């Protein structure tokens, strides 16, 4: 059972459509029991880190998600804000603790170090580089184009696992697969073939 976590943040319609295209029958829910019983969780999200965590906590979903992942081995894919929320801390709107499934922090792109041509937010198709050819990255080219729209990014901070990097003036973490969790800063549901491949790979984990 594939569960898309419904915590009231942003557009889940396209995520559901992409999963359905692949032939799976996802459930959109905020029911904690369903979350615990899932084989795969997708945590979507558009909006601010603080509001996102508030919405998750108000619904009691933080405990259900971490329990599902840590104790039941449920696979999770965080998309865009959803990936950021998997981290330990987000700076946005004054700072909030995340789900802490990985220890990484989330920070605003530093406009001081970016080329003036590089606007924040980073919006559009950009290339993700990886040397990985298995797991989440199976069947993707080593430079795969994905659609991004974000102002904050997760810091790399020695994360171990299969990693994909993107360059927007600076290199940043665009996607990862660790033993327990996966994340994509881009929107696989808006990234044509490459996004469908990544979602299919996640469902196969």
């Amino acid at each position, binding site marked *: *059972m*594939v569960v898309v976590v419904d915590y009231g943040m*942003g*557009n889940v*319609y*396209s995520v559901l*459509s*992409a999963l*359905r*295209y*692949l*032939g*799976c*029958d996802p459930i959109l829910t905020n029911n904690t029991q369903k979350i615990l019983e899932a*084989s795969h969780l997708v945590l979507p999200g*558009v909006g601010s880190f603080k509001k996102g965590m508030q919405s998750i906590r108000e619904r009691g979903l933080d405990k259900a998600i971490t329990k599902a992942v840590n104790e039941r081995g449920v696979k999770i894919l965080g998309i865009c804000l959803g990936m950021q929320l998997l981290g330990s801390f987000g700076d946005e709107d004054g700072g909030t603790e995340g789900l802490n499934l990985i220890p990484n922090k989330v920070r605003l792109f530093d406009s001081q170090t970016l080329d003036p041509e590089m*606007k924040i*937010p*980073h*919006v*559009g*198709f*950009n*290339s993700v580089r990886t040397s990985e050819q298995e797991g989440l990255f199976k069947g993707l*080219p080593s430079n*795969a*184009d994905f*659609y991004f*729209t974000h102002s904050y990014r997760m810091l790399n901070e020695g994360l171990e696992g299969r990693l994909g990097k993107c*360059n*927007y003036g600076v290199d940043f973490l665009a996607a990862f697969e660790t033993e327990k969790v996966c994340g994509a800063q881009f*929107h696989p*549901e*808006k*990234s*044509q*073939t*490459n*996004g*469908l*491949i990544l979602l*299919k790979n996640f*469902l*196969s984990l």
Partner: protein
Amino acid sequence: MLKKRVIFTLLYDHGSFMLSRNFCLQKVGNLRWLQKNYNFSQIAFSIDELIILDVSKGERDQDKFCEHVKALAEDCFIPIAAGGGIRDLELARKLLNSGADKIVINSDLKTNPKLIELVAKEFGRQCLVASIDVNKENTVWIQNGTEKLDLSAREWLAYVSQELPIGEIYLNSMENDGTGQGYRLELLDLLPPSVSVPVILAGGAGKYHHLIEGLLHKKVNAVATAHLFNFVGNGLELARDEMLNEGIDLPRWDIQTAKNMKNCCANSQ
């Protein structure tokens, strides 16, 4: 570095999709027609973005428009912008919950700048596409090309790009609209030299080399075409190959693989 984009614009009018020539509309078919005779979901694998504009005259049925956006978003895995007749935050929210990622605003840039502020505050300025229709005298028209502004296009573009919290400009030539004779590149000279948001050039593309001509211009980030019959069948797929061969930095993906992935996980869950 961000890639350039090829955008398809669908014009919607009370449940039908339209062809426009110099802003005169002609009905071509409904959603079923678009899928069955035009094979839209296949064509969508050859574009980088979809824009859906409600150009209905008279009273609009906004729920029906949202339903059409939803139906189009179902098998279309690219960013989608939707607009036309958005007068309040609620409709913007509804479109964003129907599969759209961005909102296109035209007349409200003039008549309701407060709404622009509200949408930007709620969803971010990257969410707002400012659509600007310019005729051959370089004057700006709003309300589906029926009401002329007192400002020149140069003044209007400077104001919209510098004073309003918008994320992109959709610059459309009314003179070349639907003619298939190529973009009116002179429009780009009307942009302020410091324009900091991406520019989408629209109006007039009829052949793939028009798209290339547009994309090669240094002020252009994306080109749009709204002509349903200039790129029928695998026309857009071939056009895309030509553009990549010409060295235009478009995102790349394998179209056939996506088609083969339909229902590939059906039995594994």
